[in-house]
């Protein structure tokens, strides 16, 4: 339980990194809104979702400080995401096969 000690050594990132992340997020938003006009056919959902995932990754790791937290936090998030994916995969076993 030595992480009690490490919690006091706070990582204090400067303001600059957040502005950069925000710029990246805005760019990705512009990108996804623009390419929405282009028809990728089947892939348009995938493209939009991949961009959304990149954006949420940025928010999670930078804004929400996940990259500074204990490893357990990242495992928690992973568990929840895997649980959700598991539900969706199993659910589609019913809806995508007849």
């Amino acid at each position: 339980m030595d992480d009690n000690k490490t919690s006091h050594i706070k990582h204090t990132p400067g303001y600059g990194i957040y502005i950069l992340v925000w710029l990246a997020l805005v760019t990705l938003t512009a990108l996804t809104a623009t390419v929405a006009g282009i028809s990728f056919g089947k892939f348009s959902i995938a493209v939009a979702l991949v961009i959304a995932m990149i954006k949420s990754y940025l928010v999670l790791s930078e804004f929400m400080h996940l990259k500074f937290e204990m490893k357990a936090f990242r495992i928690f998030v992973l568990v929840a995401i895997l649980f959700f994916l598991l539900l969706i995969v199993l659910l589609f076993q019913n809806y995508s096969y007849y």
Partner: protein
Amino acid sequence: MTTENEVVVHAHRDDVGARMGMWLFLLSEFLLFGGLFLMYSIYRFNHQHDFHIAAEGMNIFLGTANTLILLTSSLTMALAITAMQKGNKILSLVLQIVTFLFGLAFLVNKFFEWRAEFREGNYPGSPLLTAKPSGQILYYGLYYTMVGLHGVHVIVGMTIIAFMIRFTIKGIINKDDYVKLENAGLYWHLVDIIWIFLFPLFYLIT
């Protein structure tokens, strides 16, 4: 509620523990929306054409504007925490207020968007909507529910931030003890992440 326990909790303050609790709660929130995303995926899969038609009626401009508003509010929230860490109370306070105002702007925007939809007659149970094919009814059903529930979360987030502003003024949140502000920020960012997914699902994918 001042009992002995509280004294103890304060005496051995565990910021990591506080954040851990918040994260776990947020994962629960994520799965609350997860249930809705599951429904969306199944209904979209079963009614691809109807979803396509219904999504074209959405106002991409307002959706994009709201996305930018929320992203920027996330930035100001993150900056407010950094400012507090650096001991700049005034800057942190200003940034928190700005975040709150962005939340308000988001809701105002949403209000106009929904008003337009309602005026067109696309409200739940309306004769126009119920006459449409079932896939489109479901699209609007999900749209109002998911965006509405997200809106409720924005309001909750704003309430939390309002409390944080108060705490900051009173000095309860300060340079050495700002985990409350961090947790408020975590909540606000989650609201942002959910919107990051709602935006393409309802506005972009047609």
